[in-house]
């Protein structure tokens, strides 16, 4: 793993005192690498939002330390935190939370303007981001005229406006239908992978597991288990490594979502390598396998 973007160690948050004390987050440690997508799941009241608020420099921890790109956020004075949030974090919310009086373009540009970018430049930057997200025909629409998916894309563009290294997303698919929700997740993943931004998502949505590099389960303010995710080379589904069906081929171990996928793979492995978008430790082996399989096929002919 590269040097982590975000490093959290022994983070605790208490509310109240003595008999009324509630420990919302208890001794949590976490590291998020550049380009990594981490999904935090857990039941209601487990401390997810409290943890998210602390990670986003919106709530001070009772104990522990948060480092962002090496800087200790938890030690910074209150007056410096808005600037950190503005320049280093991007936020994506469940309810999109766009400013109702501003157009899509202005909702994105205002974040850059707050960071000191000249209005003209901020608008140009916002136009570029929204165009990249397919909203070039919606630039001047007010939020009330946008669909849920469009609003969330505006929110994502806003989160990217100041080029943050870290994006925090709170239930980003909760108000989207299945198809649009899936599109949003793919979008967030591509942002993480192509732009090297780290993303932490808090969600109840099981489908998000598909795009996460890691899934963390928070319960009673603590991480109970961490699940590594793997990509099925046949159907491209992301699957928990522990629950995946495994197979070894050519000295390498591959993981599948089901026996059907495993059997299909073993019948003709080379068929799945050309389009594989798997990344991680298997990628080099897969590419090599494609090359050798193609050579074998040529020799048979």
């Amino acid at each position, binding site marked *: 793993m590269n040097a982590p973007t975000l490093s959290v160690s022994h983070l605790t948050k208490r509310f109240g005192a003595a008999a009324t004390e509630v420990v919302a987050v208890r001794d949590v440690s976490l590291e998020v690498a550049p380009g990594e997508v981490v999904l935090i799941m857990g039941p209601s009241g487990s401390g997810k*939002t409290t943890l*998210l*608020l602390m990670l*986003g420099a*919106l*709530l001070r921890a009772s104990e522990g330390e948060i480092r962002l790109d090496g800087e200790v956020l938890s030690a910074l004075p209150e007056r410096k935190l*808005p*600037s*950190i*949030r*503005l*320049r280093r*974090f991007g*936020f994506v*919310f469940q*309810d999109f*939370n*766009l*400013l*109702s*009086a*501003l157009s899509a373009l*202005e909702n994105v540009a*205002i*974040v850059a*303007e*707050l*960071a000191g970018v000249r*209005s003209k430049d901020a608008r140009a930057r916002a136009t570029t981001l929204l165009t990249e997200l397919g909203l070039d025909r919606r630039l001047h629409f007010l*939020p009330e005229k946008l669909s849920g998916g469009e609003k969330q894309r505006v929110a994502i563009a*806003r989160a990217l406006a100041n080029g943050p290294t870290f994006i925090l997303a*709170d239930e980003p698919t909760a108000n989207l239908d299945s198809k649009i929700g899936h599109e949003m997740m793919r979008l967030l993943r591509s942002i993480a992978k192509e732009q090297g931004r780290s993303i932490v998502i808090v969600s109840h949505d099981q489908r998000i597991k598909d795009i996460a590099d890691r899934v963390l389960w928070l319960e009673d303010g603590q991480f109970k288990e961490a699940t590594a995710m793997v990509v099925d080379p046949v159907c491209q589904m992301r699957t928990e490594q522990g629950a995946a069906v495994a197979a070894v081929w050519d000295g390498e171990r591959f993981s599948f979502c089901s026996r059907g996928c495993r059997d299909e793979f073993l019948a003709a492995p080379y068929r799945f390598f050309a389009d594989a978008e798997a990344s991680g430790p298997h990628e080099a082996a897969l590419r090599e396998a494609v090359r050798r399989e193609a050579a074998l096929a040529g020799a048979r002919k």
Partner: protein
Amino acid sequence: MLHLAQRNLFQSRTKAVLAVGGVALAFMLIFSLDAVLAGLEGRIAGFIERTGADVWVAQSGVRNMHMASSTIPRAVVDQVRGIDGVAEAAPVRYLTNVMVKDDERYLAYVIGLPEGATMGIPMKIASGDAYPRPGEVVVDGALRQEGATVGDTVRILGSDFRIGGLAEGLASTLSSLAFIRLDDFDRLLGNATTTSYVLARVAPGVSADEVAARIEAAVPAVTASSTTRFAEQERKVVRDMSTEIAVIMNLAGFLIGLAVMALSIYTVTVSRLPEFGLLKALGASRRHCYGVVLGQAALTVALGFGVGLALTFAASLLAPLIDPLLYMQVTWPSVAKAAAISLVVAGLAAIAPIAQISAVDPAIVFRRKVA
């Protein structure tokens, strides 16, 4: 941030119109009262300024006409004529009384002018003559509005006078003017040895103030003032009489404007508190958030100020059509005063919303929908 302030303010046009309209009416109240008073001052001092005289000589200690009484020997006229720098001098008698026409009574300054007067005559005549003949009176539009025409009869100081001319631009809501011959004036009051004032015209290139000083030095028991000073003193008297009313009405306008402003800015801000929470969560500093509120207040006040001023100008054009005596004059000092008031109003109106924003927790955005 001003952009956001503008959008927040105008997203609901009804609310914006109510807010700006309320502030505009408050400013109109301030402007209108000032304009009416300035118009009154202008009209009352206008006669003095347009008499054609350069120096006014009055009884010692008298420096204006309104609410004043002056009696000096008519011989002073000749004394003034003999002073170096004086080109011309003439007596003018003056009395505040009433004119009666068809049982209607009108408060009037009755001015007695000598035959062939070149100073103190009405400058603008709508019909008839500017010079009253014996038994005639030249009156201002106050009577014309009541249907008076040349040839009609009015009663002044118990005697009937034929209207010989109708003047314009001299009467105010406070009083009108009636010009009669000095002989008639003397006959009515029974004393031909005194006058109220002596009007003097100075020789070309001579300072009126300098001549006034010479008159005071040479003629005992008189006060001589240049026309400029005499008119200014007249304005000051009117101003002093209306100061308390003006202060009360300005205060009323200020409080109404403040109440409307504070309520509208507070409503706009409180309805958007979650959005301010969002801005804070995204990284907006308090300065940014306060800037939005102050921007809203400043925009509302600026628009209200502009609309209020425009309405007052419109009212000043319409007022004489409704009542010829109602003359409104918008002055720069009045505009400057209202501008200063507007800054105070905007600042005060923003205090409560700023306190609300200061208290809003940015974490609110993770707990509820903001818009």
